């Protein structure tokens, strides 16, 4: 039934988050949320959907938790606390939940799985399928993470003061990993990453990097129908059919960026993505702006990959000579990252040295393992040296 599925998506995280706060028991919280949904599945088609589905589910889940605890003869104090959650759940419970799920004392893969299970409410079997492991492996991973939270007493709270910034960076890294995993082939994970980031944004409206990350996701996701050709191969940005891009998503991202200050790397990445997304044709791309954003990004994150992208951007904005000069800063990854050679080849071709460019394209092709990419590089070499 649709209403139950919708209620599941909208209310799962809040119900689980509140039950964890009042019972301290992660498994009990999940089981009771699950039971409440099963009850809804049985009753709503018969009795109609309640006026406040979230409140209804919360009450049923809370009563279920109370039953279980009563039977387990938990001390009165805890029972009273659970009974007292008649009041609407405190708004920051989901925030506590997401910060605890992403605690750095848990393994990264456990953080990702736990976030999907307890905050997003995905089933263990769906998470297992998305990460290409068996359901029993995923169940073990989740159980181990929950045991560690209890045994090591990982606190159920949002960190304060100096710790907040550091820990928020960790939460955003989990969302970023989730999105990229989705982008590379499990669309459900990209959708969940966007949904979770949206939720985090409403819970922490003052954190600009959360809004920037949401904008970045929306911009990348807007190309999902244009990124691959009929045979499933990746289509480069300048060859994509821009009519297939998701315009409403791009418009939302641009609006978010208009009201979001630039205070971190995601803000810069999102602005670069927006320059691409708002160009009607590849030749309309605002390369000078992209080059400036990359200058900023390279200053706060001086990594060779960013140096590579910066060199490419400057190559388009200020000519191939400038691009080739900046590419020097990316040469240390030349052996692991054939894109460096391909970028050098492209800049060399645009500088007019076709023979050397063709040699470099062939060198890049030889170092590339991806079939379609290698074919594309060899085609470029053949065009330059017929």
């Amino acid at each position, binding site marked *: 039934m649709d209403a139950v599925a919708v209620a599941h998506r909208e209310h799962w995280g809040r119900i689980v988050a509140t039950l964890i706060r009042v019972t301290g028991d992660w498994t009990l919280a999940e089981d009771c949320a699950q039971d409440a949904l099963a009850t809804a599945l049985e009753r709503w088609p018969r009795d109609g959907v309640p006026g406040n589905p979230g409140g209804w589910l919360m009450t049923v889940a809370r009563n279920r938790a109370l039953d279980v605890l009563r039977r387990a003869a938990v001390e009165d104090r805890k029972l009273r606390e659970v009974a007292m959650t008649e009041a609407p759940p405190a708004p920051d419970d989901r925030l506590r939940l997401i910060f605890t799920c992403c*605690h750095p004392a848990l393994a990264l893969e456990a953080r990702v799985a736990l976030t999907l299970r307890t905050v997003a409410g995905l089933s263990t079997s769906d998470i297992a399928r998305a990460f290409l492991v068996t359901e029993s492996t995923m169940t073990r991973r989740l159980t181990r993470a929950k045991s560690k939270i209890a045994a090591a007493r990982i*606190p159920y709270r949002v*960190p304060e003061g100096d710790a907040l910034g550091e820990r928020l960076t960790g939460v955003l890294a989990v969302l970023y990993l989730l999105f990229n995993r989705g982008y590379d082939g499990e669309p459900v994970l990209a959708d969940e990453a966007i949904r979770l980031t949206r939720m985090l944004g409403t819970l922490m409206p003052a954190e600009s990097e959360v809004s920037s990350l949401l904008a970045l996701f929306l911009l990348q996701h807007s190309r999902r129908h244009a990124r691959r050709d009929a045979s499933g191969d990746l289509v480069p940005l300048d060859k994509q059919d821009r009519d297939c891009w998701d315009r409403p998503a791009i418009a939302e991202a641009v609006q978010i960026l208009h009201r979001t200050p630039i205070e971190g790397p995601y803000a810069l990445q999102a602005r670069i993505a927006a320059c691409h997304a708002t160009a009607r044709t590849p030749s309309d791309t605002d390369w000078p702006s992209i080059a400036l954003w990359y200058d900023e990004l390279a200053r706060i994150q001086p990594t060779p990959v960013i140096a590579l992208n910066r060199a490419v951007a400057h190559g388009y904005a200020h000519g191939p000579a400038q691009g080739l000069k900046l590419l020097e800063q990316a040469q240390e990854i030349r052996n692991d990252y054939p894109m460096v050679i391909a970028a050098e080849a492209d800049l060399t071709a645009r500088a007019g040295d076709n023979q050397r460019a063709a040699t470099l394209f062939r060198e890049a092709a030889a170092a590339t393992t991806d079939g379609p990419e290698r074919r594309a590089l060899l085609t470029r070499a053949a065009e330059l040296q017929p």
Partner: protein
Amino acid sequence: MKYMMFVCTDTEPETDESRVPDIEVWVAENDAAGRRLEGNVLAPPSAATTVRVRGGEVLLTDGPFTETKEVIVGFDILECADLDEAIAVAAAHPMAHGGRVELRPYADL
């Protein structure tokens, strides 16, 4: 919550560029705050004796129970509200900067 903090060497120490805290200050501060219940430096592994009882017989081995290059050089028993507090205490220990420190909660029995 009680945590046993194992203070260990690291065979591949990467020099930490931040200023390494002073052990005397660390001990004084955490003792005063009631977070450090006990602790000491241990004699080297060459002084260790491993004891097993098998088939009613006491078997002794000269040396530590594992042959690793990392060595437990000391320990502290911490009393902290939660893991975040224990992590803050551990991160302020000088050996966290050149060696490594393991936090193990007491089992909840």
